[in-house]
């Protein structure tokens, strides 16, 4: 017990050290990464208020994020121009209010039904808002977008917020407050009843609650924090155009949240971290990173519906149940199969991408730390060979792993 508490303390200490690093370090990359992470975590957590807690799959959460973005952009400009005597630190409140207002209006129509209908309405709403925003460049700035300058005179702390580390501090504080609030809300009676609505809305009706009203309130909470996240985005980047409302933004937060694991309160934090890491690192190495990203998402849906957090959380239990020796054996059987498949797959993807998208296909392609010629059949053969090897290894591993599955089957029957 004491050991786990000291471990927790150590972890917290390490986390706060990492979070405060940008204040002393000069690394712009690290500062920007952590700022973006804070924005993304807030946004993903707000999305999970819908998906994980209430069981509402939305394809239009970017609408409320975007509302916060533009509200904040105009607020900052108004403060800078002296039209408004609000300290810059309180701009996120404006973003939250904008998100809340939009969610309250659009939510009335959206949450009448759950499931597929809700998903489709959210998509329709998002397309409507995006298309409408494109029609009004006077407000949303068209292609160039709307920009602002966050270096204003009215601040609470006296900080100028010109330096990335200063704005990082502001974003971090708001993100931490938001996350704490959302965790608190998930434990309130409303949060608990939202879980009940997610599991079985019909039963909730017979316990004195109106599922529509629960969904609506949760929708408003999600919208509020999405708006707040949007304002943090605006404070960080000081520019945005109407595309922020679009499906790409919504898809991004959906994928990040789901990758992290929607059944865990802090799953979206893990998801946001991984997605941002992939985005910033993978995008520098390969142009096909979105493809890998989509592949990872599909793999998680198919094989690990509890997300990356679920995999991590399941590891200690699996170790205890099967013993370290058995786990190691399985890793040794599956490891090479997965690895060779990954290598072969990545080679195929990179080669075909190079062939179809580069100016001159015979230009050398940097692949696994070596220059290769994509027009050379040998490389392709190698890639296909790795894939074939992987398939053979998977087949063998499955044959070896069939026995424990048979033992497990009756247990499932009993439980259901």
């Amino acid at each position, binding site marked *: 017990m004491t050991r786990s508490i000291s471990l927790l303390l150590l972890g917290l200490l390490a986390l706060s050290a990492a979070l405060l690093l940008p204040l002393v370090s000069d690394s712009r990359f690290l500062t920007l990464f952590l700022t973006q992470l804070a924005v993304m975590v807030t946004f993903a957590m707000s999305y999970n208020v819908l998906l994980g807690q209430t069981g509402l799959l939305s394809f239009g959460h970017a609408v409320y994020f975007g509302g916060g973005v533009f509200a904040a952009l105009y607020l900052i400009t108004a403060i800078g121009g002296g039209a408004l005597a609000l300290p810059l630190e309180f701009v996120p409140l404006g973003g939250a209010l904008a998100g809340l207002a939009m969610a309250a209006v659009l939510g009335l129509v959206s949450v009448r*039904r759950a499931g597929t*209908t809700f998903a489709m309405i959210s998509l*329709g709403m998002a397309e*409507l808002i995006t298309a409408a925003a494109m029609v009004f460049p006077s407000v949303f700035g068209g292609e160039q977008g709307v920009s602002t300058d966050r270096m204003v005179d009215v601040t609470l702390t006296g900080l100028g917020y010109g330096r990335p580390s200063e704005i990082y501090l502001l974003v971090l504080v708001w993100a931490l407050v938001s996350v704490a609030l959302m965790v608190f809300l998930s434990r309130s009676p409303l949060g608990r009843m939202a879980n009940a609505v997610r599991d079985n809305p019909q039963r909730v009706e017979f316990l004195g609650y109106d599922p529509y009203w629960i969904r609506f309130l949760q929708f408003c909470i999600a919208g509020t924090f999405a708006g707040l996240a949007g304002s943090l985005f605006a404070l960080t980047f000081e520019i945005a155009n109407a595309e922020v409302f679009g499906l790409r933004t919504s*898809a991004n937060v*959906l994928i990040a949240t789901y990758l992290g694991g929607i059944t865990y309160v802090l799953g979206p934090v893990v998801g946001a971290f991984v997605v941002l890491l992939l985005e910033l690192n993978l995008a520098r190495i390969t142009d096909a990173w979105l493809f890998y990203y989509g592949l990872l*998402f599909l793999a998680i*849906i198919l094989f690990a519906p509890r997300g990356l957090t679920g995999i991590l959380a399941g590891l200690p239990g699996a170790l205890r149940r099967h013993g370290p020796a058995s786990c190691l054996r399985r890793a040794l059987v599956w490891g090479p199969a997965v690895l060779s498949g990954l290598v072969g797959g990545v080679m195929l993807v990179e080669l*075909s991408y190079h062939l179809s*998208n580069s100016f001159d296909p015979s230009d050398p392609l940097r692949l696994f730390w070596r220059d290769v010629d994509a027009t050379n059949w040998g490389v392709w053969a190698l890639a296909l060979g790795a894939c074939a090897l992987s398939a053979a290894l998977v087949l063998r591993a499955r044959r070896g792993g069939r026995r424990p599955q048979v033992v497990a089957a009756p247990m499932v029957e009993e439980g259901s």
Partner: protein
Amino acid sequence: MDTFAFAVVNGLLYGMLLFMLASGLTLIFSLMGVLNFAHASFFMLGAYFAFQLSSVGNFWLGLVLAPLLVGLLGATVERYGLRVVHRHGHVAELLFTFGLAYLIEELVRLVWGRQPVPYRIPEALDFPLFSIGGIDYSAYRGFMFAIAVLVFLGLLALLKRTRVGLMVQAALSHPDVLWALGHNVPRLFMLVFGGGVALAGLAGVIGGNYLVTEPGMAHQMGTILFVIVVFGGLGSLLGAFLASILIGILQTLMVAFDGTLTDLVVGLGGAAPQATGPFHEIWTITPANLAPVLPYLLLVVLLIVRPRGLLGTRET
């Protein structure tokens, strides 16, 4: 008047094309409860496959092979993807097809690049069929129309005359009855998913060169498609048909006409409003500007007034 007639004919054609997609989507939804988010992605694959096949052989090869390939791919996806996530419920299935749409779009970018590909109308059909008021109506449009009508009739015959069709019909009206009948339901699912997706592929083959074959076409078509099936009432074939034609004609008509609120105000004898300030564009928007917004506006209004859709009976 001629522009009007022309727009209606074009709108009807576009509507028929939409219905080729919407019918498959509706059948899949009624039977399996899955709204296939990737439906338009299979439409896109149909177009790209046809382009590839026509650059190797000719258009007719693509016309025959591409839908088959897409259907085969669809059946595989159903067997090894959808069926796996089925036990996690409809939200998981919807998520899966969403991820699939995402992946297919990236795959297309990967293989064929970001720019539109030169998928062209076959030369044999590249001549004016007739002309109204000096505007030519191309033979290829007539050909598309014929295919769409053939598909429509074929679908009707399939549903009314065959055993599979009867089972699908039974499932359309009473979703639970299928399991009670004790047929091979998983195989039926695979068949209908593959078939519906093949239909989308066929629409891609004949529509890809009429529209533009590029990686964004799935998203563009997909969202309109969802508007249609929700608008028509989830699960209603007739509703999907009416909604397809309605939206097809409406969108084409709006692009064909111009005129703004300013024109209206001036026409009524008022002074032209000042074009400054936020939202000033409202005075200068043409119907063509509004064409992309309209389907969603219709959808939202309909959902407020009649959540079941045009002809739907089910609400979820």
